[in-house]
């Protein structure tokens, strides 16, 4: 229950961090909030050669809410993103989902970018990024690249981050006018990893009819699953039916495949009902 040996650096600028990561190659591992990595070290499930601690890169601790998007820097803690009123008004789904990420004490330390890079199949923020069509900016000594969410999540705990790269920020698009969103999940205890969860968005056209319905699911596959449920015309029952037909669930120690399929229907119904009410509220207000 103690970490194995590793080398350690705490760079004080992004340039220095990239130089260190570049020289280490596959041996290097970024340490952000440590709320996923340190348990893996303690349990000896990971044994990186060298940790590059980014906690001194205070310049990456930002949350910038613009007109069209929210940009979250690599050192912004979950708690900071959750508390950011401007971010909440530009994209309400961020705060709705973050309230379900672990417990407040874990959120004080864990970073939102770290949880996206970590790509846990049960992560709320991966589903949010996938649903909203956000992206991740990655930097290395070779330059920068931006990867869209639909290409970023490769599998269970596997994201498109190459050796030597630092994820510097994620970009989350704003919620358009006349659209609503909701997040719901089912876990054994509040704050635990979800057995099944869903984020949903509903867009209304100017006459108030349903234009588009989408949902993203966590804990149902190796990576977030995004469905277009527009053909449900916003009816929660038919959306739940569509989702249970389309999602292939599997069983594990937390739930059987059958129970999880049942939950897909439950979270779809709940998320859609709430997102629709949210959209109508915003369209009227």
């Amino acid at each position, binding site marked *: 229950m103690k970490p194995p*040996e590793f080398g350690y650096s705490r760079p004080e600028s992004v340039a*220095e961090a990239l130089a260190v990561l570049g020289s280490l190659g596959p041996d290097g591992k970024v340490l952000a909030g440590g709320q996923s990595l340190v348990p893996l070290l303690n349990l000896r499930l990971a044994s990186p050669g060298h940790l590059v601690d980014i906690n001194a890169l205070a310049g990456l601790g930002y949350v910038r809410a613009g007109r069209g998007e929210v940009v979250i820097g690599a050192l912004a803690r979950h708690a900071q993103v959750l508390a950011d009123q401007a971010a909440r008004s530009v994209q309400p789904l961020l705060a709705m989902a973050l309230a379900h990420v672990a417990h407040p004490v874990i959120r004080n330390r864990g970073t939102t970018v770290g949880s996206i890079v970590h790509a846990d199949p049960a992560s709320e923020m991966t589903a949010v990024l996938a649903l909203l069509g956000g992206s991740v900016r990655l930097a290395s000594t070779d330059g920068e690249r931006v990867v869209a969410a639909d290409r970023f999540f490769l599998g269970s705990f596997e994201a498109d981050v190459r050796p030597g790269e630092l994820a510097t920020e994620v970009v989350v698009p704003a919620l358009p006018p006349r659209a609503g969103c909701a997040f719901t999940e089912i876990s054994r205890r509040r704050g635990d990893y979800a057995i099944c969860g869903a984020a949903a968005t509903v867009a209304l056209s100017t006459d108030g009819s349903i234009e588009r319905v989408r949902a993203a699911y966590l804990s149902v596959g190796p990576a977030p699953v995004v469905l277009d449920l527009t053909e449900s015309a916003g009816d929660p029952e038919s959306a739940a039916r569509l989702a249970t037909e389309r999602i292939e669930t599997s069983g594990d120690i937390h739930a059987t495949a059958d129970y999880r399929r049942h939950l897909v229907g439950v979270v779809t119904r709940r998320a859609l009902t709430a997102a629709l009410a949210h959209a109508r509220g915003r369209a009227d207000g």
Partner: protein
Amino acid sequence: MASGGDGAMGSGGAVTNPTTGLFDIRLTVNGTLHAVSVPARRLLSDCLRHDLRLTGTHVGCEHGVCGACTVLLDGVPVRSCLMLAVSADGSAITTVEGLAAADGTLSAVQRAFKDSHGLQCGFCTPGFLTMITAALAENPDPTPEEAREMVGGNLCRCTGYQNIVTAVLRAAELTRAERA
């Protein structure tokens, strides 16, 4: 690569001692400055308990689940088992030993736990006390629902939580009375 890393390799603020391969760090714990040399892999919880002999911080699970190891890092509650001591270099830490006044007078949160029977074996208590101290600073007047939510991230295997929730509400009362 050797433990402690290579000082020449841009370890920035973290400096390895060339003879020992350890990191020389400084922690202000409960107001006292400590200089201590640790390997990179030393957890903050172990640094407090083993190096500084402050065994009030308890270690239950070492993977972030139980909350027994919670300390305040620059006033903010964190799991000390999920932090490397070297990462905490330069910060101010409050452990359960730092909650009472210098003369031993218990803090409001400690008194509330005592009065409300918020503990039995006491193993989980240091984590609850530090976390609640910080949480009440942020929300001095929690509803019963908020009090329950507040303690949701810490495990207790004895009390059944009811008296802990009572203690949170009592602590809030005592703190408000102290401030009035």
